[in-house]
C-alpha cells in the first residue's frame, strides 16, 4: 500500500487516488523519420526494468490530475522521493547504496524474489 506525496497537492495521499504511468524521463526522438528501426523500437518498447532504484511517472488521477515523478525502490517499494515534471531526481541508483530496507525484505522473504 502506497502513501504518496503529491508534489502539486503538497500532501501525502492514498494509493487509490493515483495511477502509475511507466518509466520517467523518456524523450521522444526529435526526428522520428530520421530514426533507425533500432532507435525507434528502443524508444517504443525498451524500458529500464531495474531491480532497485527506479524513476517512474505517476498521475494524481483522482486528485489534481497532474503527472509527476517518483523515485522508488522496486524491491522494498520504498518511495525515496517525488518531484515535479521537468525536474531531475536527486536520488539515483548511483547515489544510493543498496537500501537497508530492501535488504531486509530480501532476507525476510527467504528466497530473493
Amino acid at each position, binding site marked *: 500500500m502506497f502513501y504518496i506525496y503529491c508534489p502539486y497537492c503538497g500532501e501525502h495521499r492514498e*494509493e487509490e487516488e493515483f495511477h502509475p504511468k511507466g518509466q520517467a524521463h523518456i524523450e521522444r526522438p526529435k526526428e522520428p523519420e530520421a530514426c533507425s528501426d533500432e532507435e525507434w*523500437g528502443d524508444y517504443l*518498447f525498451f524500458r529500464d*526494468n531495474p*531491480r532497485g532504484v*527506479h524513476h517512474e511517472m505517476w498521475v494524481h488521477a483522482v486528485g489534481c490530475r497532474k503527472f509527476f515523478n517518483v523515485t522508488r525502490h*522496486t*524491491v522494498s517499494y520504498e518511495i525515496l522521493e517525488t518531484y515535479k515534471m521537468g525536474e531531475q531526481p536527486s536520488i539515483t541508483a548511483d547515489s544510493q547504496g543498496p537500501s537497508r530496507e530492501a535488504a531486509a525484505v530480501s532476507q525476510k522473504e527467504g528466497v530473493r524474489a
Partner: protein
Amino acid sequence: MQRYSGFGLVKHALSHHENWERQWRNPTPKKQYDVIIVGGGGHGLATAYYLAKEFGVKNVAVIEKGWLGGGNTARNTTIVRSNYLWDEAAALYEHAMKLWEGLSQDLNYNVMFSQRGVLNLGHTLQDMRDIQRRVNANRLNGIDGEVLDAKGVQELVPIMDCSKNARYPVMGASWQPRAGVARHDAVAWGYARGADAHGVDILQQTEVTGFKIRDGQIYGVHTNRGDIEAKTVGCVAAGNSSVLAKMGGFNLPLESHPLQALVSEPIKPILDTVVMSNHVHGYISQSDKGDLVIGAGIDGYNGYGQRGSYPTVEHTLQAIVEMFPIFSRVRMNRQWGGIVDTCPDACPIISKTPVKGLYFNCGWGTGGFKATPGSGHVFAASLAKGEMHPIAEPFSMFRFHSGALIDEHGAAGVAH
C-alpha cells in the same frame, strides 16, 4: 528412477512408506556442462527434461537461486488453455496443450491436469464479436472452441449471475472444453524428477551473478558457488530476466510487475469449470482441495517484491462478487504475489540474443504456466540445434525492432 504405480504404493505401505527414493539428487556443481539452464521454474526444468530425453543432451545443469518452482510456477492460478488469436501464438500454446494431454504418463508423475474447460465471458457486443473472431481463428488452427450465448453459459455455471440486472450482463462466452487446470508444483517436481533421471544436475540455492563472455560468445556463468562453464546457456528466469539480460550487456523489452492471486477457505465442490472475464476483470476456479482460486490483473507499477497492494485485491474480489454473488461471504485464506515479466505485445520472447550461445526464454508475463511443456520443448530443440525451432522463431526479441509483433492482448486480457 523409481517408477510410481498403484502396485508401488501398496508395496511401500508394507514398509510404512519409509523407503521412498528422493525424487532428485542434490549434486555438487561440475566445472563444466554442455548446456546451462538458468532458472528452475517449470519452463527451465521442462527445457532440461526435453534436452536430455529427446535431444540427447544429457550433460545439463539447471541453476536455481531459490528452490524449484519457487518463482511464478508455484504462485500461479494454473489455468491452461490454447485459444489464442494469432497463428504464431496458437501454434505455440496448442503445441503445449498436446503435450499436457499426455504429460502425467510421460513423466510418470500425476500433474493433475484436469480438462474441465475454460469460459471467457463476453459482456458487450464488441466482446462477443471479438470472441467470435477468436473462436473462428482457433477452429481454423485446429483448436477446439465454441461460442456460447448467455443461456449456454448459465447452463454450464448455474451459480453465476447471468441475469439482465447484472452491472455488466453476461452476453455469452467462448468455451474451450479441452482447457482446464493442472497442479503447479507437481509440474515442476515431475519435470525435475524426469530430468534428474536422465542425468541433469539440478543445482538449487545457486544464484547466477554474471556471465562469462569472450568475443561475443558465452562460455560460462558466475555463481555464488563458483564459476561453471558451458558454451550454451538458456535463461528462463521470468520476472528476473531483465536483470540477467543486463549482466549480458543488452536490454529486453520487459517490465516486471507484481501479479497477485488469492485462495479462499475450502468449500464443497461448487464450480467445476474455469470462468474468466476480461471485462468485469477477474477469474476463478475451484481446486480439488475445495478452495476458490482467484486472480485478476497486475499492479500497474514495476516491482520485484513478490507482493502487490490492497486496492488490486479489492478490485479483484469486487469482480468476483459481481459475477458470483453467492461467494460474497466466502472468506479468503491466503494472498500472494509473483513477479511477472510483461512484454509489450503480450507474447513471450524465445530467442537468440546479441551474445552468441546465450538464449532467453521469458516475457510470459501473466500467462506462461499453460505453455510450460511446449515452451520447454521448443526451447530445448533450439538449444540442442543452435537454431530456433520453427514454432519459437516468430518469438524473437528482435521483433521489437522489425515491427513483427504478435498482439495477444485480447486473448491474454485478464492476467491468468
